[in-house]
């Protein structure tokens, strides 16, 4: 129950960012559309697939915990971690690319003020999301020795379950981020840079 309450506040946290993004998108439709077109849709789509996969592996992990199978539990957690790391890898490629194209507000930015606002939101939202993923990876790392010791049994697996909730939430945030940032307003025939 505590985890649901925590997730409620996470929704409010990201909600603030989403609200701000919505306000500015309405104000600066042209600039935001241009911004969306700068984002690599194939990398975004790849990341979406990776994350959805990781939610699947996470769900399998929870199931393994429920039936008390230590070995599979460990493997599914490792798989989730691998997918999480892959996501972050793709993200870093994206970020590096933005840097090369001088689209990072605060570091090297060329473009109108409104485009800067778009990219500020892009980095703030995906950055926050990535931070939550890194925390999730950290928690999984911390869980590994416990799994190996057999801490989680059929009777006591709520930490795994709760973490599963957290991980699914992080996934869902991305599922909202991806269309909002990458997809809407996009010119379907425009080639990605």
């Amino acid at each position: 129950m505590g985890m649901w309450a925590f997730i409620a506040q996470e929704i409010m946290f990201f909600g603030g960012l989403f609200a701000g993004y919505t306000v500015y998108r309405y104000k600066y439709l042209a600039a935001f559309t241009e911004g969306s077109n700068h984002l690599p849709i194939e990398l975004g789509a790849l990341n979406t697939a990776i994350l959805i996969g990781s939610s699947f592996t996470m769900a399998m992990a929870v199931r393994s915990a429920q039936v008390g199978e230590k070995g599979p539990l460990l493997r599914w957690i490792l798989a989730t971690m691998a997918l999480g790391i892959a996501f972050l890898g793709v993200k870093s490629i994206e970020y590096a690319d933005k840097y090369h194209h001088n689209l990072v507000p605060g570091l090297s930015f060329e473009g109108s003020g409104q485009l800067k606002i778009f990219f500020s939101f892009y980095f703030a939202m995906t950055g926050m999301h990535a931070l939550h993923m890194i925390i999730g990876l950290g928690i999984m790392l911390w869980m590994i020795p416990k799994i190996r010791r057999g801490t989680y049994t059929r009777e006591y697996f709520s930490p795994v379950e709760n973490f599963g909730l957290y991980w699914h939430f992080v996934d869902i945030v991305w599922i909202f981020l991806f269309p909002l940032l990458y997809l809407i307003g996009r010119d379907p025939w425009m080639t990605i840079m």
Partner: protein
Amino acid sequence: MTTDTAITTPTDSRRVHYLNASYGIKSWLLTLDHKRIGILYLVMTTVFFIIGGVFATLIRLELLTPQADVVEAATYNKLFTMHGVAMIFFFLIPAVPAVLGNFLLPIQIGARDVAFPKINLLSWYCFMAGGTLATVAIIMGGVDTGWTFYTPYSSTYSSFYVPLALTGVFINGFSSILTGVNFLTTVHKMRAPGMTWFRLPLFVWAQYATSIIMILGTPVIAITLLLVALENVFGIGIFNPDLGGDPILFQHMFWFYSHPAVYIMIVPGFGVISDVIACFARKRIYGYSFVAFSSLAIALLGFLVWGHHMFTTGQSMYASMVFSFLSFLIAVPTAVKIFNWTATLYKGSVSMECPMYYAMGFIGLFLIGGLTGLFLSTIAIDIHLHDTYFVVAHFHFVMVGGMVMAYLAGLHFWWPKITGCTYSEGWAKVSAVLIFFGFNLTFLPQFVLGYLGMPRRYHVYPEEFQVLNVMSTAGATILAAGYAVLFTYLILSLFMNRRAGPNPWRAKGLEWEIPSPPGPHNFDVTPIVTAEAYAYDEEDVTPATPGAPDEGSPIPREAERTEA
């Protein structure tokens, strides 16, 4: 687990309770006992109160004269910023929930601890880290934005210390969130058998409502402050009009949290007052369910009124009207509480001890504070009064005349339980009277000043405002004296060896059925609750003389042990 077998005589220091169960600094700094965590918060919130109070003193000293003769303008601006930040984020918001709530919530519902004791400790460390960072940033650097951090002043025109201070407040936010999650889960999942929702003391209802606000509201300020910090450091342009940003967006996001935040500050106080009045009128609170639900109503409505801080910004007329309307609605559940507390005294058995002094003072002063809020909800009047001393007086009435009085009422009510010592009733009453009068003299003239047009955050002012300012400072001196007396006798009480029994006030509630101070795990056996809340019409559970064995209790106790 230490067993608390016979109730020994009061002077028997061999009895083990939460204070002497273990010694040493590690046992305190790594404690998982909610009672010790409450004490940790008590000490640190008091420190921040003193810091905030010192800055308030300097402010009032400067305002004795129309010119700048105590401090220069830049310093003055840092003074009121620090006063606001310290008092709001590091005293008022944690005070009742983290001090009294942490200590009493599990006991009042019959539990041994909160749902997540480690997270409880983490919450204190977040508070400490955030408070230290913010204080250091403001003292060392140049944070002069006011506690409201309005953009673009805070994001584009201000020093680097601003993001540091903002980070401090951000970290402190986690303290609130974690406490809220903890309390919510505890109330839902850990009530003793028989403790149904409607048998809960109203203090618990109040904490519950507050937890909801903490959980839903704090993340919004977190992200808002984070964005301001990013803007200050990286120049990202969200609130900077030169880059197409909107400074008013900041205000919307800031007040979306900060208005509910004021309810985080006051609703726990409401809970304290309910428990205190019930005890000192020796009657069940009139209209229990109405009072309980009004806390929830206030929590919910509180999220809908943030725009009433922004009537003069140029927001749309229709938005202003909607916010004004909703702000008037909030007056109703609040009024309901006041009427119910008053009605509780009817045909009661009223005894005026010190906690009751504070409770009565609370009702009067909070009433004035709340009513002046109506002035500010009326848009036409607010246009004149916005950003004047009228607003300053209003919020000090509700926060100091309201919240601090409620906190002191609770502190005095539960002091014997928390410390096992009794304080000097005579000095307590002296202090209460000094505080009451000092407070009124400080802030009533400020209503007049506000209507006259004296703006807030002014370092120098027109000469004709001086007489009222002098009155205000005189009041502040008396108020400070009152607080000084308060600290003195409370601290002295710890050394004067006057032991308190389990129930010096003959009050109802699970906390009064265990020894003072409580044992490390609160209850030896899990209580089974059959009595309604505030069952003052029934026989006393514990006898009036402390130390006598427990007999003839109408609440049967379960004989077997509980699970670990």
